[in-house]
């Protein structure tokens, strides 16, 4: 009972963060990119509840809109890697034999390469906007998903109902979607949730370094791009609030994932 309440708490927190960023326009008090050179580096208070940044832009407003960008990238890329991972894992797990061993060898190699390296290689030539980033995180983040789908398929393939379905001539795609995928939903959901946390991390880290989303688009990572310098002149609020929001977002995602993982066992 107690853990149920905690679970609902984390879900509610994450839901709240998603809601306020989706409806950023309703809650924001200023236009996102409105600069006001008379009001640079204003401390939280009077009219700007979370202060203003080095261009006099409202931190609270940018926090909401930035969240929209960061979370869109995260959700979009996770969806993409889910699709790729499921396709790769399905083929490998269902076909089996030498196809499976070749595909697994390749996957093993891919897993042992830091995925951030592929992200860097892509960013060197693309450096697109929000969708470019989504694509890059998506195509470099499907390895664990594929491995889980494959191992679930291999386990489920031997189940009686699957053998039966095959005997009755059920088409392969229906066996895959109706039986194998359907019974792999829980582990797939768990790995996807953890991927979501990872995707948020990659976006904010790269944008912070200046090699992520272009500075013209507000994202949580971009808001932190100047935070190091801002901090040195005492403007702590510019770095603190986006960081806290990233922390609580990832924290709630991780807790949701952990609790789902435990309840499965």
């Amino acid at each position, binding site marked *: 009972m107690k853990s149920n309440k905690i679970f609902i708490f984390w879900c509610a927190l994450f839901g709240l963060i998603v809601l306020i960023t989706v409806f950023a326009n309703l809650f924001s008090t200023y236009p996102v990119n409105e600069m006001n050179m008379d009001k640079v580096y204003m401390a939280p208070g009077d009219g700007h509840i979370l202060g203003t940044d080095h261009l006099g832009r409202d931190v609270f407003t940018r926090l909401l809109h930035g969240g929209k960008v960061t979370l869109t990238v995260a959700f979009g890329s996770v969806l993409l890697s889910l699709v790729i991972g499921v396709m790769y894992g399905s083929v490998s797990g269902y076909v089996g034999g030498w196809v499976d061993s070749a595909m697994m*060898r*390749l996957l*093993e*190699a*891919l*897993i*042992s*390469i*830091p*995925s*951030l*390296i*592929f992200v*860097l*290689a*892509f*960013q*060197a*030539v*693309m450096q697109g906007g929000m969708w470019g980033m989504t694509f890059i995180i998506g195509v470099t983040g499907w390895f664990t998903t594929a491995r889980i789908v494959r191992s679930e398929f291999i386990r489920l393939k031997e189940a009686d109902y699957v053998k039966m379905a095959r005997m009755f001539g059920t088409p392969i795609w229906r066996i895959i979607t109706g039986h194998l995928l359907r019974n792999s939903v829980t582990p797939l959901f768990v790995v996807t949730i953890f991927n979501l*946390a990872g995707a948020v*991390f990659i976006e*904010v*880290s790269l944008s*912070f*370094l*200046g*090699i992520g989303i272009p500075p013209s688009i507000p994202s949580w990572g971009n808001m*932190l791009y100047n*935070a*190091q310098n801002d*901090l*040195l002149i005492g403007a*702590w609020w510019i*770095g603190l609030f986006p*960081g806290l929001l*990233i*922390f609580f977002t*990832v*924290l709630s995602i*991780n*807790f949701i994932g*952990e609790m789902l993982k435990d309840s499965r066992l």
Partner: protein
Amino acid sequence: MTVKWIGKRMMLGILVLFILSFLSFFIMHASPGSSATAYYGGNAQMLSAAEKERISRTFALDRPLVVQYGAWLMETVQGNLGMSAKEGRPVSAILAERVTNTLLLVGVSLFFIVTGSILLGMEAGMKPNSLLDRGLSSFSIASSSIPAFWLGILFIYLFSLKLGLLPSSGMQSIGGNDDFFDKVRHLIMPAAVIVLTHVGVYARFLQDSVKMEMRSYYVKTARANGVEEREIRSGVLRNALIPYLNYLGMTIPSFFGGSVIVETLFSWAGLGQLMAKSVMVKDYPLLMGGIMLTGIIVVVSLFVIDVLMFILDPKLRKRELGV
């Protein structure tokens, strides 16, 4: 037999490096007109036509991508990584200056993560319902939810700006001449950021496997027979270390990815910072070199972990060697 096993592992490592180079090369070179000129180095205007012709022939720049990759591979295997597009110096020279810095940062961090997580995980796993046992999983989730660079910023604010205890960036103070303690002082914050964001996760993993071992029959039997607690501890640790090492091997690649961010934040002149910089200025040969060297380091660390597991796990030895 052992030789055969080592050979097999090495083949796997070479395969990883091959796939890494192939994919990175194609990602970077597939965009039209991107990188052909990059091979001329920073001083493309000053090169004579004959010089350009020679470089172009070496790297097959006017040929299809696959041929270019083949040429690149041939040159790389012989140790010629080309010239940095921005600095106009050989890539290998630049990498050589930086590799030890990364190894130092990652090595020190890894040492504290491994020893710290083993101590914490053992303690938590052996004492059920203690404060540590109950608190560790929350600590692990919380600490892995903090972006490393943000924790770093907070540290800089606290320890450099407010308390003035530690330098905020770089590898040595201005005017410092390779003083050992000066370097250590610069190392503390970046290493602490990496350790703090990782140690909880590994400790928790070990805690779980220690708990699993504690429930097994051999521990109960040993207890019943009055085997000393110290001996039980070492037996449990030994067995719990096997899945722990496996987990370490699985996560070590992301470790090197993470050092890109920490190195850049603290201006630690390592490979990660170099790669981030190369992305910014589109220095493809340099980025490619950094990627390959990082790949080699990862492959070697995985090999070391494999060997350790081989020593610790008699089942694995038996299966692989058949003795």
